[in-house]
């Protein structure tokens, strides 16, 4: 009797466990799908079965895939923002009647920031879910791996936030990017550092770079080191695994280098952990000028995790808010309504545009055939939240013909890059001061640690 009661208890608890796991486990998230009940309903006998079938085919949703890091060790804060923006894109498309009269089904998958996971989910999106194009993408290492799957299957991906130069420099027909090139971002970083030294009289002999061991971090650190060297500034690079929590040992080494500036090229939670632990150790953004990772622009999460993060410099991709076009303003309004945030993160904005680009390419080509979509993307002129988006270096204007580096292949050439600074504790990202470049400047930088 006792045993039976225990077994019943166990079975009940297992059932709850399974139900809860089924409910909570991360799965592909879809929006805009037909109601399952409708799919399962028994077909009514009709007088014109062929015509009915044809209508069903026409109303079948167009499936678009979306990549975002939604669990650790990926940059979850960034992934959540991207997901919200891509959902807005899908809702907008469906609200205006879908694409070519067909509803849009957005299938969002979690890359976890891991290349092997990225490969698996892209494979699934293409071969199981049957998507015609893919948008989003945050981590370069995921982009580097995922581009091979897209290439093998001939399905286009418009990357929103993967910076590694090789993603486009391999010149795959299927790969497009609206994020900036890593080497271009490094150039802006170093120009800013030089500007601090030359125009603001800051002592800048040595920079410490903290980077992550990924396809984003390693080349970005190498580029930055080379450019700093050209500028006559010494640098030391420390690299860590993605998702590293404990920086105590490395921070002591950073301290021993007595840097004049710290540049953080680690993404996600690792960047929060490093910045706050550095602050605890006395070399935080209020002690040594620090360039924090762009995930710091998620101000709520930033101030929760880095309460001593005031005076962080952060690179921001995209135009300042005062220069937003109508598309961006409408997006911000909707995004704010959904998330309660005052502004949208640049990678969320780019994710929105990546979905909209694929949608317009389908409309322009009048087809859901991936090769037709690729043709349309090459010739696209899309007014997105980031501004007018084109891919001028393509099969009809190759890098060789244009006399440019292969990294510009299928690359949006104009993502604006600014450097902003938190100048008040608890400040919202929208209120940060744009300190560089001069053309967008809204205030002077506060340079700490200068005696």
């Amino acid at each position: 009797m006792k045993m039976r009661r225990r077994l019943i208890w166990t079975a009940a608890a297992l059932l709850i466990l399974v139900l809860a796991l089924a409910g909570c486990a991360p799965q592909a998230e879809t929006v805009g799908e037909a109601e399952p009940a409708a799919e399962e309903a028994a077909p009514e006998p009709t007088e014109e079965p062929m015509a009915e079938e044809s209508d069903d085919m026409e109303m079948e949703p167009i499936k678009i895939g979306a990549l975002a890091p939604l669990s650790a060790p990926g940059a979850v804060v960034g992934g959540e923002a991207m997901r919200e923006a891509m959902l807005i894109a899908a809702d907008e498309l469906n609200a205006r009647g879908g694409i070519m009269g067909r509803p849009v089904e957005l299938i969002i998958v979690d890359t976890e920031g891991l290349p092997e996971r990225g490969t698996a989910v892209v494979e699934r999106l293409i071969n199981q879910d049957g998507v015609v194009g893919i948008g989003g993408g945050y981590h370069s290492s995921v982009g580097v791996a995922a581009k091979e799957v897209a290439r093998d299957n001939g399905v286009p991906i418009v990357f929103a936030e993967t910076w590694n130069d090789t993603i486009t420099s391999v010149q795959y027909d299927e790969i497009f990017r609206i994020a900036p090139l890593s080497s271009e971002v490094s150039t802006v970083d170093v120009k800013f550092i030089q500007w601090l030294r030359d125009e603001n009289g800051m002592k800048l002999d040595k920079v410490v770079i903290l980077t992550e061991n990924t396809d984003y971090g390693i080349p970005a650190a190498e580029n930055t080191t080379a450019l700093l060297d050209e500028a006559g500034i010494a640098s030391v690079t420390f690299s860590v695994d993605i998702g590293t929590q404990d920086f105590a040992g490395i921070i002591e080494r950073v301290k021993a280098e007595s840097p004049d500036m710290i540049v953080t090229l680690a993404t996600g939670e690792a960047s929060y952990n490093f910045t706050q632990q550095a602050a605890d150790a006395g070399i935080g953004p209020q002690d040594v000028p620090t360039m924090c990772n762009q995930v710091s622009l998620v101000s709520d999460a930033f101030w929760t995790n880095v309460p001593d993060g005031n005076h962080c410099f952060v690179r921001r991709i995209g135009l300042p808010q005062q220069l937003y076009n109508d598309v961006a303003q409408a997006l911000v309004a909707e995004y704010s309504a959904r998330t309660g945030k005052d502004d949208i993160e640049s990678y969320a904005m780019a994710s929105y545009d990546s979905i909209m680009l694929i949608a317009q390419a389908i409309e322009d080509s009048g087809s859901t055939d991936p090769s037709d979509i690729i043709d349309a993307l090459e010739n696209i002129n899309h007014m997105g939240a980031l501004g007018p988006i084109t891919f001028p270096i393509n099969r009809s204007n190759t890098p060789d013909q244009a006399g440019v580096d292969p990294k510009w292949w299928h690359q949006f050439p104009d993502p604006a890059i600014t450097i902003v600074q938190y100048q008040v504790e608890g400040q919202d990202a929208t209120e940060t001061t744009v300190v560089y470049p001069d053309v967008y400047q809204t205030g002077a930088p506060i340079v700490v640690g200068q005696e």
Partner: protein
Amino acid sequence: MENAAIFGWALLWILFWGALGGVVTPRIYARKDLEISQASFGGAVIGAALGPFSLVPLWLATPKITSRLIGISIALVVGIFIAAFALADPDNLCVANGGFVVSQLANGIVIGIIYGLMALGLTLIFSILGVVSFAHGEFYMIGGMVTYFMTAQWIPGVSPIVAILASCVVTFAIGYVFELIFLRPMGSGEIERPTEYAILVTFGLAFFLQYFTQALTSAVPVKAQRFFPFPRVEIPAESGALLTTTPGNVTIFDAISVPNPRFTAAVLALMMLAALLWFLYRTWVGKALRAVSQDRQAAAVTGINPNSMNTLAFSMGAMLAGLSGASLVQVFSWLPQVGIPAAARSFVIIVLGGMGSLPGAFLGGLIVGLVEAAGTGCIPDATRAAAYIPAYGMVILTLVLLLKPTGLFGREL
């Protein structure tokens, strides 16, 4: 590294004579019909220390290999290793900067204490139930989450001590209920294959807790504010040569620097450790727990209910993990997945210290903390030093398992 050859030759010396001592010594002791339980480990460390100068006398005289002899030999090996490193890389921070070395050691000890506390919970469960809990990292995560939400969301301004106690209660309660429902049938022989069952059911609990927490709190990282910010103090005034404190840091002798959150976390861990030791060694229930861990049947004969001890041990183990998380949520950004690396490290520590050994778990935690700090601080290549963090503990674990498969304090089989 300026003179890498010196370091390379020293390592080769240690490895060659260590391996030779480890292989030959037990054979010689066995041939003379002597005790061989420590012969392999002892022979290896004695050989690694002084090579032929210690091995030949050892093999000729075949003295009893005592813990003291092993301890002295280990100290010599560490000394040779450090001397070779210092000669090979005289400009290394670990050689040239005393303050840096002491700070790294302090940080290693501080984090090692917390690792040890977490591993204590895991080893307590193993020693009583014979189960490796794969949900240990999730109890650690829940401890931190409860503390964060108590202090930052539910009752802002509440004392961190109250929040930590709440996290202890929550993790203890989850552990208690889980043991009663899922693990109790193992103790009463109702489960056919208890080992596999325990692995699967604790794995299930781990996934459930992780994703359930993610569903409740989202995967956005959170972090508690410093529990006890230090006042700004300088002793002596103006120079602060003896002691300087800021809200986030304490610096002793102008050289040893320990961040506030780590310092307070370590103090909390030490207090909890003292309470645990008192409980285990001074109370009837604690003694009963230890009795069950030593001999389940004999304990039952004396009137101790082993099933109750199972429930208590699992709940306390879960609570210790929760407490570690509660004290570290002010140090690290906290996510539902934060327990995964912490649990992996705990597994390394309990195997290193000896499965089921409480002192072994704590010492193992300290060793892993110190080795990680030393590795991160001393590896000359700055681009690699921190990237190897997960490997440092594994290297030590491999070495110990090669020489002493039962771990440092494991019971001989």
